[in-house]
């Protein structure tokens, strides 16, 4: 069998900046706070870093979507890099981490600093959440172009809330999924956030609160949508043998999933009840002998609640179409349930760190540092997954 090259990589350190709503701090500073914390956490020095990777990198995008690109961090820290990578066209947010795994596996670098930062809460100010692509302009001659915008914005589908709601509605139609079932993703996240001092929303959320919340885009209400935040997250991905003698016991990368075998499109994907995450999940299990029943904790992207349900199905924690009944009542996904889910509160309650927060929490749980929210029983295997629509990437991690 071909070698599973990602097993030559390990996670050796993690870091996070201050996280909050409208911090009004320099986004580069938030980014660097996370980066320096990760370097220190691994027991490394700045000069040990020879690789740098981020998602999505510097780009003109909706306000606050990216806090810094490769070039800014490279220069601010005066890194001496053998390999670097930044961009949007990869397997979702965690594609940047997978790329780092491959860089260390192939010998292009030894310790890669991976980072993702956002400042959407500050950038969007006191108004409502911003539409994607400057759709709210009105006049000014803005014209939509590119595959993601040309066939969405002219139809008043301004937000990923609309694009994902279309998938959720089709899932409801085919499988009888209900809002009361979907609510469990949000309620579970809030319960876990209550035990996470870094989480943004920690006060209790009830089913009544959920069902009486204002609608955003049916079937989604306010609590199905993640909360824009300011903050940075960073990891050190090290060549496994170079991670052995660092400060922490390294977390092994067992397998990654990066596939997108369907069309790379929000509206042309072949199955409107799942998304690219179907393919990334399938690939992950093609690369390991471990099975979903071996997983002790799952940290699955919840930019919108339905995406988490779709990841649960795609990763095989339940059968396709049975996600609704699986999460009904919330017991199976609770911290003491069959598959503890989004133990930090997810983006729905802890804040939209855009993908990287899930991998961070997977590491926290595997290192046993979750404090009040730590999953019991010394978890050994975790899956972290990020992305919705045509974006998807996932990693299976072990204490091996």
């Amino acid at each position, binding site marked *: 069998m071909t070698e599973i090259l990602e097993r030559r990589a390990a996670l050796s350190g993690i870091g996070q900046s201050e996280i909050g709503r409208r911090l009004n701090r320099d986004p580069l500073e938030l980014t660097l706070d996370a980066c320096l914390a990760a370097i220190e956490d691994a027991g490394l020095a700045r000069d040990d870093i020879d690789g740098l990777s981020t998602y999505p990198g510097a780009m003109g995008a909706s306000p606050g979507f990216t806090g810094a690109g490769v070039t800014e961090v490279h220069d601010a820290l005066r890194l001496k890099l053998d390999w670097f990578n930044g961009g949007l066209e990869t397997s979702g947010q965690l594609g940047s981490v997978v790329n780092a795994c491959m860089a260390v596996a192939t010998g292009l670098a030894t310790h890669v600093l991976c980072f993702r930062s956002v400042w959407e809460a500050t950038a969007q100010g006191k108004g*409502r*959440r911003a*539409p994607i*692509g400057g*759709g*709210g*302009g*009105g006049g000014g001659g*803005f*014209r*939509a*172009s590119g*595959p993601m915008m*040309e*066939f*969405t*914005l*002219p*139809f*008043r*589908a*301004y*937000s990923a*809330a*609309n*694009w994902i*709601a*279309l*998938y*959720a*509605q*089709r899932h409801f*139609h085919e499988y009888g999924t209900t809002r009361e079932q979907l609510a469990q993703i949000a309620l579970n996240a809030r319960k876990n956030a209550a035990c996470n001092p870094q989480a943004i929303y920690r006060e209790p959320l009830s089913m009544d609160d959920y069902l009486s919340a*204002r*609608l*955003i*885009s*049916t*079937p*989604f209400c306010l609590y199905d949508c993640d909360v824009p935040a300011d903050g940075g997250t960073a990891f050190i991905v090290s060549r496994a043998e170079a991670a052995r003698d660092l400060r922490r016991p390294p977390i092994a990368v067992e397998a990654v999933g990066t596939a997108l075998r369907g069309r790379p499109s*929000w*509206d*042309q994907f*072949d199955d*409107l009840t799942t998304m690219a995450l179907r393919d990334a999940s399938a690939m992950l299990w093609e690369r390991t002998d471990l099975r979903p029943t071996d997983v002790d904790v799952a940290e699955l992207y919840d930019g919108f609640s339905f995406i988490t349900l779709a990841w649960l199905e795609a990763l095989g924690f339940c059968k396709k179409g049975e996600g609704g009944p699986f999460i009904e009542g919330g017991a199976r996904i609770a911290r003491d349930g069959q598959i503890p889910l989004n133990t930090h509160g997810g983006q729905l309650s802890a804040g939209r760190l855009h993908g990287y927060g899930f991998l961070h929490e997977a590491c926290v749980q595997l290192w046993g540092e979750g404090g009040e929210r730590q999953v019991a029983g010394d978890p050994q295997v975790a899956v972290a997954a990020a992305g919705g629509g045509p974006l998807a990437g996932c990693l299976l991690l072990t204490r091996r």
Partner: protein
Amino acid sequence: MAEQPFRVLPRVTPQNEHFWRGGAEGELRFLRCQPCGTYVHPPAPVCPACLSKDVSPEAVSGRATVATYTLNHQPWVPSPDHPYAIAIVEIDEQPDVRLMTNIVGCEPSDVHIGMQVQVCFEQHEDVFVPVFAPVAS
């Protein structure tokens, strides 16, 4: 027709103008592979089925089926007509050609999966936005 809502308009290019301006003649047009008949959307200079480069615009019937929908309540852009219906429709000629669009001409609460719809066009400047209305039963 009622007052038209604000729309972000597409950048019209030689590659996509058959689609965005076909409505001037009341036609919904897609690129079609001449050798094998496959409709190509979004526009691309090669047939995804047989890889022929002989693709050119053709009109379709404008009949389609609602594959899924959402009622948008959030005022991303101020407008008096919330909620409005966003849908993905599949065209009769080739169901894997889909359009994200709006369903007009009915109450948003009447929109449902499987609904048969027919194209109509909303003109904004030089663009004819294809939206869909229920087929009279």
